[in-house]
């Protein structure tokens, strides 16, 4: 007797979307109360193509295998004091930036995907989102476990959780993710699943992990390799979501385009921290930010948006401005942290000659003209015992929350300012991109918890810098200030048998 045996795809469908049912004792709209208000129209959820077909038993099996291997490396690293093998203790500051700025976002992603994994009406995307929720929890936890060993010896790591919710520059990544979490389920999927995971992940995850590889950080790079297969699943989910929304109804296009524009710009602003990390913080450089932007955004993003053209989707608004800014942001950001080193939970330094030459070579159009003279001047002032600090609190952009230090498109000598009056109040922005985002949803962005405003309002421990640092749990004299002269430098030199003067060059 011939049996109509099914193929794998059909079997997977039975084991996943076959589970769902149309509720009748409660209204479907009450079971899924959040998937209508954004205006996205889904006519047929069954058209969803599962981007990967992973049943739960295979998920456990693969992930358990990866975890066994990863934790074996983490254990061995700690046992052998693998931190000795990093290129230089300046590198540890990259990990500080990562753990305080990025790892808490992994956790936020975990909760956010639990939300969409519960509240999208289609089973296919729901299961994929739930798996991503699990993965993101993994990323947070393995990052904490990996960097835990560094925390035992280096400063500026221990209070990452407390700092993420308070410190002025960390409100940039925090507000980015709070923004996504405060959005509806579809916007979250576009913001994080598409814009962040698909368009920008190669400019965030990859630079940190390559930086680890180039700088001898075996445990972080092992985490990176271990997370690669998770990331590729996340990317296929992100691309599937956007295609699905665009295929479902023509009315979705303008909504999705607006989100792509917004989240591209939001993401680009957060990536300024990565730009600075790549160009200034890695003792052994991987590539310049400008090169990374050309490869991963201009080229890879270019072909992605060419592919999406058939749905009518356009390259994100202000992509050209971001590309022009790739010449500048790393220099402008590191300059901000250099001036405010007393209020940062990682160490700063002026680039040495070899480093300056590398930057001149990588940024032939701008570095010698605008930035090199400044670094040379600041280094000279430092030598003369007049190290430059900026004690005035900066004004922050209402949207991205970055201090207003970026320059006008086309004129790197002019600081870029924009403003809007709304509800009788003035709001200030760093760029047209940030102003547009505010103007579209002023009720949302007027709420921003702006660290500098909060200090002025007395909500951050007191009016003086020491009060505020105390409130950040920032251990002044250890966590902050220049690398040279820091306890980090001291411990590193003691291990390496170097005299401090020699290390300082």
């Amino acid at each position, binding site marked *: 007797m011939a049996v109509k045996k099914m193929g794998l795809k059909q079997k997977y469908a039975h084991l996943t979307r076959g589970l769902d049912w149309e509720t009748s004792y409660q209204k479907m709209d*009450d*079971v899924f109360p959040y998937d209508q208000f954004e205006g996205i129209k889904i006519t047929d959820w069954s058209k969803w193509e599962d981007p990967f077909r992973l049943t739960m038993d295979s998920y456990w099996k693969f992930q358990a295998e990866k975890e066994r291997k990863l934790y074996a490396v983490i254990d061995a690293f700690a046992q052998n004091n693998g931190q000795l093998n990093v290129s230089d203790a300046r590198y540890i500051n990259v990990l500080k930036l990562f753990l305080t700025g990025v790892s808490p976002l992994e956790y936020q992603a975990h909760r956010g995907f*639990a939300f969409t*994994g519960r509240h999208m009406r289609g089973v296919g995307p729901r299961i994929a989102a739930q798996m991503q929720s699990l993965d993101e929890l993994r990323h947070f936890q393995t990052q*904490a476990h990996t960097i835990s060993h560094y925390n035992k010896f280096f400063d500026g790591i221990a209070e990452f959780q407390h700092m993420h919710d308070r410190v002025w520059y960390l409100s940039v990544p925090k507000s980015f993710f709070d*923004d996504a979490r405060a959005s509806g389920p579809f916007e979250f999927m576009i913001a994080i699943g598409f814009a962040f995971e698909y368009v920008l992940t190669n400019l965030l995850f990859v630079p940190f992990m390559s930086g680890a590889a180039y700088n001898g950080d075996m445990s972080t790079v092992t985490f990176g390799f271990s997370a690669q297969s998770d990331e590729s699943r996340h990317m296929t989910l992100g691309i599937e979501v956007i295609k699905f929304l665009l295929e479902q109804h023509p009315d979705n296009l303008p909504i999705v385009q607006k989100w792509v524009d917004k989240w591209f710009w939001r993401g680009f602003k957060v990536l300024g921290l990565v730009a600075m990390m790549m160009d200034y913080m890695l003792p052994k450089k991987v590539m310049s930010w400008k090169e990374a932007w050309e490869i991963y955004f201009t080229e890879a993003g270019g072909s992605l948006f060419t592919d999406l053209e058939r749905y009518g989707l356009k390259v994100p608004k202000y992509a050209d401005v971001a590309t022009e800014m790739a010449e500048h942001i790393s220099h402008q950001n590191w300059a901000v942290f250099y001036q405010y080193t007393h209020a940062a939970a990682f160490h700063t330094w002026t680039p040495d000659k070899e480093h300056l030459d590398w930057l001149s070579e990588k940024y032939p159009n701008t570095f010698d003209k605008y930035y090199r003279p400044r670094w040379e001047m600041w280094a000279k002032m430092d030598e003369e015992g007049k190290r430059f600090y900026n004690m005035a609190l900066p004004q922050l952009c209402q949207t991205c929350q970055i201090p207003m230090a970026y320059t006008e498109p086309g004129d790197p000598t002019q600081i870029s300012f924009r403003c809007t009056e709304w509800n009788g109040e003035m709001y200030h922005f760093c760029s047209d991109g940030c102003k547009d985002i505010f103007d579209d949803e002023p009720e*949302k962005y007027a709420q921003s918890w702006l660290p500098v405003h909060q200090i002025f309002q007395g909500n951050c421990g007191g009016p003086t810098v020491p009060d505020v640092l105390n409130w950040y749990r920032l251990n002044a004299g250890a966590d902050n200030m220049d690398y040279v002269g820091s306890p980090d430098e001291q411990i590193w030199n003691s291990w390496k048998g170097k005299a401090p003067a020699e290390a300082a060059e």
Partner: protein
Amino acid sequence: MTVEIKTIDFEPKRQTFGHVARRIGEGKPATRYQEAVLDVQATANFHYKPLWEPEYWAYDTAKTKVVMQDWYKPLDPRQYYYATYNISRANMNQSNERNFTFVEDKELLEKLPQATKDLLINRLVPVRHLHWGANMNMSEICQRGYGTAITSPCIFSAGDHLGMAQIIGRIGLELDGQTGDGLETAKDAWMNDASWQGIRKLIEDTLVLKDWFELFVAQALGVNAVIFDYIYNGQDEAFGAASLPISMLTEFVSDWSKDEVKWSDSVIKVVAAESVENKATVSAWAKQWIAAAQDALTPFAGADNAKAQADKAREKAKKLGLEI
């Protein structure tokens, strides 16, 4: 004679992160569980109210009526973090997988009389939909709940329910000769058969709960303790010769159930013990949802069995310190 190898002195400056040290005591080494879970969720200085629920912050203690002075009291006695959770489930599943191979090789399900197959399709296989509803509930508690101590095991539990729904789905496919027809029949029973309608209504009623800790109680003491427990453990006699292969193929489910209960019991106990008010609130929820589960089970199991099963859940609730 001793051999002394000279090494560099690696005296740690601190043992763990500040937020962990403040809980376990300065200078003490932390476990991986503690570093993975304690104080991980943000608690302050949120930027925007959610567009979809502007009356709360995304993380907001007001999303449940129960009040905890510290949401890191209801810890997970299994101390799961992602790695240990996945390794545990991979191991549990490996032995379940061996059972599948055994049952398939011996054709233990295939050789069953059609009447028994039909019975299983109608009385067991529809439970995969209940697991799917439970999966939605646990994801919901993960997203709505407060504090990583309680929310992270919830996404694990959600994954477990999906996994169990798929194990049952595979049993269905074994029974229907891999055609999917049995799964269709089972779904039809879930949707229309009088015996399942109480259970379907029960889970649908939980899907719209807004108070996430009420949902936790409804799921653990109502859906799990009354319905799942009866479906998996109360039907051996009816399944007859099939009960052995079925219990082999659902070994994962019984391992899971012991594991889950260890955690969910402890959470309910700790939250109820926090205050007189919590105890009263949790007791009222337990009473209400066990009763609802009893009603739901009645058409499926008969009034006597449903009552006996619900009484068992009531006894358990009393042991957890609730007043029923």
